[in-house]
């Protein structure tokens, strides 16, 4: 066999990142950046994307030192058994919280715009059912599924362009008038939408071509940044910044302006296909969490962990009582979650550097 059964190809890794990151954040993005940065919201996104690329670089530096170890193994090796396990558990909790948050935001949209009367738990159970099923089957299956979902996303983005008849570029001018501080604030708010690629910490040993990982990751992040920035530009152009700031879900309002020959409501068509993306994002995070747990228990019992951990994600998704609380959770996860992972990575890097630990060096001995 050309490729080892358990390894991801380049395009598969690209697909995993794209599916993990592109998710619920995109629908609230125009409003969050408009509040901080006004018309220049799309510049904030580009800034946030650059930040994400730097973040990815840090991740890669850490992973490069330990080519066959996933995050729990790295942290145990670097920090010792007790502290290492604690750090891993923090990451696992973060992964579950992120999965829950993604699902909750999506279910809020569906509950508001599409299926108003269906009780929420039905959505959570259905999504979780598929997520658990996908995560059980392992990384390669996950990656193959993500590949197919990315192809689906291309179709979705074609449909995304239908409201362009109403585009007015005057809404986006003048560029840069809001000032650098406002744009930077907007970038911070936008960061929730970029979370997801830190799964590299867990997937690194599973990637076939580790020489090209950094390149693929950066290409994926640039691609995502362009998509997000393009989405904000389109929303501002069609709805105008003032009207965007009035909307709770600006992208849905933007999509409703479009029309297809066979569908009156473009937003429901897009949401239908977007379900796949959401499931992809949740599945990648859930897999990252449960695989880390399995690694902590000696690289065994992964299938049992996947069957057992879903209540955690369910709780996170069902916990917020109102839309205001959902947005608070999103804010929290975006700021503190990102900070947490950044902190973990920096800590591990620093300690590994200090202790002179490097797996690559060991094989040379």
């Amino acid at each position, binding site marked *: 066999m050309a490729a080892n059964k358990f390894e991801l190809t380049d395009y598969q890794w690209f697909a995993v990142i794209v599916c993990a990151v592109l998710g619920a954040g995109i629908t609230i993005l125009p409003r969050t950046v408009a509040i901080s940065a006004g018309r220049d919201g799309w510049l904030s996104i580009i800034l946030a994307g650059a930040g994400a690329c730097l973040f990815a670089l840090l991740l890669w530096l850490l992973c490069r030192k330990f080519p066959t170890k996933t995050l729990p193994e790295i942290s145990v090796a670097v920090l010792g058994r007790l502290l290492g396990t604690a750090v891993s558990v923090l990451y696992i909790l973060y992964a579950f919280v992120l999965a829950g948050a993604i699902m909750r935001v999506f279910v809020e949209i569906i509950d*508001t*715009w599409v299926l*108003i009367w269906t009780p929420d738990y*039905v959505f959570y159970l*259905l999504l979780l*059912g598929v997520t658990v*099923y996908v995560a059980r089957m392992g990384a390669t299956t996950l990656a193959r599924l993500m590949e197919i979902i990315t192809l689906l996303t291309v179709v979705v983005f074609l449909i995304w362009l239908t409201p362009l008849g*109403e585009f007015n570029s*005057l*809404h986006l*001018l*003048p560029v840069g*008038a809001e000032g650098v501080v406002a744009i930077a604030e907007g970038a911070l708010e936008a960061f929730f939408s970029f979370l997801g690629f830190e799964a590299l910490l867990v997937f690194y040993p599973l990637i076939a071509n580790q020489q090209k990982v950094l390149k693929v990751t950066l290409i994926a992040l640039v691609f995502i940044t362009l998509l997000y920035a393009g989405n904000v530009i389109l929303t501002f152009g*069609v*709805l*105008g*910044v*003032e*009207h965007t700031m*009035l909307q709770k879900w600006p992208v849905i*309002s933007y999509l*409703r*302006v479009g*029309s297809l020959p066979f569908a*009156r*409501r473009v937003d429901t068509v897009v949401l239908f296909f977007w379900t796949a993306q959401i499931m992809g994002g949740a599945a990648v995070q859930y897999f990252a969490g449960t695989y880390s747990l399995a690694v902590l228990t000696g690289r065994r019992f992964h299938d049992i962990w996947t069957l057992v951990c879903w209540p955690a994600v369910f709780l996170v998704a069902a916990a917020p009582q109102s839309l205001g609380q959902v947005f608070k959770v999103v804010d929290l996860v975006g700021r503190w979650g990102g900070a947490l992972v950044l902190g973990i990575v920096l800590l591990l890097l620093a300690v590994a550097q200090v202790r002179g630990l490097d797996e690559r060096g060991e094989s040379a001995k």
Partner: protein
Amino acid sequence: MKKVLLLVLCLSLVLVGGCWDVLVVEELALAFAIGIDHDVNNPRRFILSMTNPTFSETSQSDTRKILTESYSLSNAFFNLQRQRERILVLGQITSIVFSEEAARSGLLHNIMRQVDQQRDMNPNVHLLIVRGHKAQDVIFMKPEENARVAVYLDKVMNTNFTAGEAPRISASRYWVSYSTAGIDPVIPVIELTGPGEEEKKTDGVIITGLAALDYTGRMQGFLNDKQTYYFMLLTGQNHRSRMTTRLDIDGQVRDTSFYVKDVSLKVKPALENGRPRLALKMALEVDVINIEWDVDVEQEGVDEIIETALARDFQGNALEVIRLTQDWGTDIVGLGQHMRIKYPRWFKDERWRQEYRNAHITLEVKVKVRRVGTLIRPQY
């Protein structure tokens, strides 16, 4: 494991498929067009009229027309539902007709604000204001061209947009121009036509112009059909424009009709002593269909004379449209946006409402005539 999966899949097929919630078209009351009128007895209420096809062989008529009074839009729809044996569905509404009183008094904006929050209504509905009649008269008319009122209205608006006679104004465009600083909304105006007395006209509608609304969504002024052309040229909506005008050439007034092939408008904003000044430059490419001038059009200089006359005509009429909007205080052309782009610190939406009235606006027009008809002597 496989058996569990099979069981789960079958269960989900039955429980989640939603068979009991199916909406069959014959059981739906599909609202296609609604009309909004003032209630003369109670200023806080309004009257909603609706038409929808019945899709039933046993009903007496093809369409069902209803009136209901209410305080709010949702309330009106609930009232409507209480009268029907079918489930009311709003997603197919294609036109909303307002009476002129509703437009002038602020009821229009009140309703539009509520439409924005009705999740199943279509943001691409046509908005119309009717003069001289109530909105219910439009909804209850019997058009000659098409049995269904809503389909007729929808097609009138779409066809005229394609033919360059009216701009495409949808609900979302209204909301966007209302909210956006530096531009105000505009809505097409229709009147009922037909033989017979004023009260009895029910044959159809004619698009007579545009209503200019101010920043509160109240109608302030009316542009007639000729002025509508110039408005559309000023806002770059020159989709297949055909126009007629009367040109002053050689001491005589001559009827001219032409296609406008291309329009471009450049706006140069400036601030002089705190007073806004806008220099507009319009360039047009024109293809003359017919001109009432007995001259050999292939002669030297004829094109230039027509170009100059056209330029003067455009300049005069377009400036007149702009002056009218300045009098009304409605910046429907969107010149405020250009001021905002050039002077982001100076521009404030509240201030622009006053400043626009005093803005000094000049217009320079340049016309290029591609050809003058198909005859050498158009007035032979």
